[in-house]
């Protein structure tokens, strides 16, 4: 065990992780050592062991130290093991947990199995000796270039170790987070598969689903963030949540709408609502789905979609014809009107003014030049 060195556990440049296994205990020759429960990592360059309970505790040995390995089968009450016979430690080895050892071999005990696969890959790496082709950053270069060996004062080692420990902490957090994330995703994937199966059955009517159950299903999909594959419903992707939201919006937007000429774009609404909420914000999709329910729920607002794709919320009392009629009056008085001017007059945003006028141009004649859009009363129509 005296061939091991303390390490940050970070992989160096050029070093790749090959395999890892939890639940491994280390032996110095025949004797158990305090490293009894850890993750064993096999890389192209090293064998790394990291304590499962204390991630700070991490040791490694270069693969070049390994002479050969053999398997030791499991017995009653004994886990399967790999015995690794080692070269003597090199004089300029980095400090490790043991200064000396009376054994020239170590054992890796696989308490949670995994020994077979590990042995196979371990053998591969020792045979291929990939570390010789890819000299890694500042790893322990045991057999190479002794002149380049760095002579460091203890103080610097301490500082560097602290820096590495900090890096390792971040990295460790990430790699542990990543591991946990991968496991979580596996479970999420199962949910996705299950929901697809249910959706299929709904489509093919294998068993009857009530409307209530369909709504329940949709709320499950909403919770998981799975797109709704079933499209036979009447309320779009609406769930109870969206219906509630729609009612809230109706209350919340009444006054702002009146202040803005009775009409607001969905982006304006999105900002207004989320700024007001501060927390537990609505997603853009939440907003759209809620707005789609405004009319079905007979609320005093409605969602309108222009040809350009722009989506607006209007007061039900907002009448397109009246808007155009008043625009017409304004134009006749002043001769002509740009969208900007109209917007200022009515109190709505310029963008919407542009759209409204452009879409309802029956009564108005447009002059579309690089100077912008300008509307004139259509004398052809009105003076016939």
């Amino acid at each position, binding site marked *: 065990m005296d061939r091991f060195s303390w390490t940050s556990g970070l992989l160096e440049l050029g070093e790749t992780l090959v395999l890892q296994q939890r639940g491994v205990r280390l032996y110095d020759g025949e004797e158990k050592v305090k490293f009894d429960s850890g993750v064993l990592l096999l890389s192209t360059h090293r064998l790394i062991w990291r304590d499962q309970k204390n991630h700070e505790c991490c040791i490694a040995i270069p693969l070049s130290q390994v002479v050969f390995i053999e398997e030791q089968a499991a017995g009653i009450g004994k886990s399967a093991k790999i015995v690794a016979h080692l070269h003597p430690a090199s004089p300029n080895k980095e400090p490790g947990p043991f200064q000396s050892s009376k054994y020239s071999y170590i054992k890796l005990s696989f308490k949670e199995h995994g020994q077979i696969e590990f042995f196979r890959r371990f053998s591969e790496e020792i045979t291929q000796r990939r570390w010789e082709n890819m000299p890694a950053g500042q790893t322990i270069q045991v057999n190479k270039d002794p002149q380049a060996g760095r002579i460091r004062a203890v103080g610097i080692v301490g500082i560097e170790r602290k820096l590495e420990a900090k890096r390792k902490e971040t990295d460790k957090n990430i790699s542990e987070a*990543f591991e946990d994330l991968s496991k979580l995703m596996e479970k999420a994937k199962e949910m996705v598969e299950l929901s697809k199966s249910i959706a299929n059955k709904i489509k093919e009517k294998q068993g009857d689903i009530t409307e209530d159950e369909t709504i329940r299903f949709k709320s499950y999909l909403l919770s998981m*963030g799975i797109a709704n594959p079933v499209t036979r419903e009447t309320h779009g992707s609406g769930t109870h949540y969206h219906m509630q939201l729609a009612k809230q919006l109706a209350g919340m937007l009444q006054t702002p709408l009146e202040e803005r000429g009775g009409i607001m774009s969905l982006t304006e609404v999105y900002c207004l609502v989320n700024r007001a909420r501060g927390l537990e914000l609505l997603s853009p999709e939440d907003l759209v789905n809620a707005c789609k329910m405004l009319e079905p729920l007979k609320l005093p607002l409605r969602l309108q979609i222009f040809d350009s794709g722009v989506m607006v919320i209007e007061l039900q009392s907002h009448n397109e014809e009246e808007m155009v009629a008043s625009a017409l009056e304004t134009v006749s008085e002043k001769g002509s009107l740009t969208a900007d001017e109209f917007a200022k007059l009515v109190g709505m945003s310029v963008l919407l003014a542009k759209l409204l006028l452009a879409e309802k141009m029956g009564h108005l004649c447009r002059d579309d030049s690089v100077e912008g859009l300008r509307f004139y009363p259509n004398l052809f129509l009105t003076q016939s």
Partner: protein
Amino acid sequence: MHRRGVGAGAIAKKKLAEAKYKERGTVLAEDQLAQMSKQLDMFKTNLEEFASKHKQEIRKNPEFRVQFQDMCATIGVDPLASGKGFWSEMLGVGDFYYELGVQIIEVCLALKHRNGGLITLEELHQQVLKGRGKFAQEVSQDDLLRAIKKLKVLGSGFGIIPVGGTYLIQSVPAELNMDHTVVLQLAEKKGYVTVGEIKSSLKWEVERAKQILEHLLKEGMAWLDTQAAGEPQYWLPALFTELYSQEITPEEAKEAIP
């Protein structure tokens, strides 16, 4: 338990159908639904555990967010679909991106008079960071792109146009087709483009080039410099760097257009 008491006949018929399905070993949808409900509860617990350990990581680490998003996309899950989703509620990813959406909209709105609704991702990033202040969470360009993709759903014309090595973000519903995009990409190198350059690089007819440039002018995305030596230059404010740009009011902007 009877879900629908429509009469003995209907009940019997249903029971028969159910029995037939069960016989064939087919699992009924409502059984699977019950199963899903249980699994959902379990998943929620797992996610809570994950959140208690790693929520900070997601908050602080943009790279981890990218990994997280990619994994979700791979399995077919959209963690940003709804504020009511588990991911959003427990990991707080929702609020992060939805608030970013608001900030993006506000920046684009504030600068629209200057650039016509086109802005580089870099400038957007800078402006958003400025607005967030120095104690806010770190925001990466990837974060911005994801927030923008979500904003598209609002129908307000948000678009992402690849130019040079980066992106132009469009925030108005101006119709920009392939021709416009290609001209924007051509203009990216110097911040402006001329009819002559379009002719020689893209081999277009003068008429086509002029039409595209005039559309950009009309939308306020391009400004015309008729005093340049040689032929008139069409400048894109979105592509102005710190070197060229200066604060300009909407009135000045109007006067700049002939």
